[in-house]
């Protein structure tokens, strides 16, 4: 394997905490996505299991196309995205200022953090019956479930992001005569922005989880509902297509957040 013409001493890729080139990274990533896909295709084609229970990749792909062309895939996707976006935005609109206040002021932390911690451990799914009683099965019910599932986590994570602002940054502003309001607006909020965007990226993933939960229980439209309906008619290809689609949308959103992070906060990227 060793190429004597080049005297490079680049360490091997298997070294602990080692380095991968960009090409190598994508090679491994493609491999990681391809292997389960290939195993699935082989298993489905082998005939060991009825195609009703385990449709192959091709029938799932063709189902996805007919769903898009003949049925209302676009409408299902859009309504789901709408629910996630609304619930998530509502959550963020309240969690950001509240988290900032908890992170900035000890009394607010003492007042709200134990309470939030307590509620956070109540499973959001357990609130579904209550939400349905109070709000029925309209849009507000689904949005509420997403809100309950993400808000309390988000508050605590934003508060932690704010608490991790280096003390020296805060004290430097104090010795320049910054007021409390200026400290929050010009130092804490600014300094914590990249970490908060990461928090939003992570909670966005949870929002999708709770969307599907809400749509499985209390809906008559959306991707989660389509999956549930498909189960009734034994349309496993639709279930597969729905699950994969939700995964894909999540992946795209996650990458979108990462792109935004690199784009907005180049100053927070370099290490060391």
């Amino acid at each position: 394997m060793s190429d004597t013409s080049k005297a490079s001493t680049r360490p091997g890729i298997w070294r602990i905490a080692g380095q991968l080139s960009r090409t190598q990274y994508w090679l491994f990533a493609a491999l990681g996505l391809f292997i389960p896909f290939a195993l699935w295709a082989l298993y489905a084609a082998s005939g060991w299991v009825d195609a009703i229970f385990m449709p192959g990749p091709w029938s799932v792909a063709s189902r996805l196309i007919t769903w898009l062309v003949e049925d209302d895939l676009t409408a299902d996707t859009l309504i789901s995205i709408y629910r996630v976006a609304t619930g998530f935005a509502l959550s963020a609109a309240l969690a950001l200022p509240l988290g900032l206040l908890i992170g900035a002021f000890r009394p607010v932390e003492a007042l709200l953090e134990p309470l939030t911690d307590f509620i956070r451990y109540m499973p959001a799914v357990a609130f579904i019956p209550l939400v349905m009683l109070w709000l029925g099965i309209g849009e507000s019910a689904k949005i509420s479930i997403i809100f309950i599932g993400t808000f309390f986590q988000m508050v605590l994570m934003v508060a932690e992001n704010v608490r991790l602002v280096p003390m020296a940054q805060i004290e430097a502003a104090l010795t320049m005569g910054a007021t409390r309001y200026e400290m929050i607006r010009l130092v804490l909020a600014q300094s914590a922005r990249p970490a908060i965007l990461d928090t939003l990226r992570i909670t966005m993933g949870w929002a999708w989880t709770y969307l599907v939960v809400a749509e499985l229980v209390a809906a008559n439209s959306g991707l989660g509902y389509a999956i549930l309906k498909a189960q009734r008619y034994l349309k496993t290809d639709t279930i597969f297509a729905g699950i994969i689609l939700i995964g894909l949308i999540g992946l795209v959103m996650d990458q979108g957040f990462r792109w935004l992070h690199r784009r907005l906060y180049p100053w927070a990227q370099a290490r060391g």
Partner: protein
Amino acid sequence: MSKVIIQNVGKVFERAASSIPALENVNLSIEDNEFITLVGASGCGKSTLLRILAGLEYRTSGTVLCDGQNISTPGADRAMVFQHYSLYPWLSVIDIIKFSRQLKVNRENLSSSDVEAASGRAEALLNLIGLNKVRDAYPNQLSGGMQQRVAIARALMGRPSILLMDEPFGALDSQTREVMHDLILHIHRIEKTTIVFVTHDVEEAVYLGQRVVLMQPRPGRIHSIFPVPLPALRTQDMKHGEAFRTLRSEILARIRESTGITTDLDMLEQLNLQSAES
């Protein structure tokens, strides 16, 4: 009247189990335009004293006056340079330097001519620290020495009454540190700022200070104050001179004496004693 008057200042840190006296009966007067260095073994309270001056830490007894005013909270008249991590990574070098002025502009709705004057001041400081070339760079693109230069310029922007420096060059390599020493002396001459400089490096304390305040631990207090017998205009070659070397050795000897530790063996013995007691 002196610029800063510190009278009978004490500080007790209240812990859950016990209270630890960090400073006891500290008296010190600092003159206008003086460059004073605080030196001592770790735990001697030099940083605590500086932070009390800044208003970042509160004292539990005594009085501190700056320009005749009682000090209890931080204020723009007492700027501080920290050891590290104090720059704002989301701002460019020039915006960091202008930060204190930005606060004022937002608060007082200054006229455009005031803002322009501030810009002139920021550019002049940028020149003074020799970083015009990285005017629009961000902190993560700068070396440690450059970052500390920016921190100094930012602190000077609001023309503070005194400049407090808490081991500002402690994290730099020795070559960079020497360059920074001459830079801060130059700044002291140009800006005519009163500077209080904390360090654990005796050589640094003697080279920079007009007076060196030696502190000793348990509880933190002033051991003695040494006037530095060197000309006001310091040059690196003075470090090899008789006066410099004598004073440095003298202070080092006093530090060893005050901590009761002169060699590593002494330290081991002390540790053994402590473990035998407990």
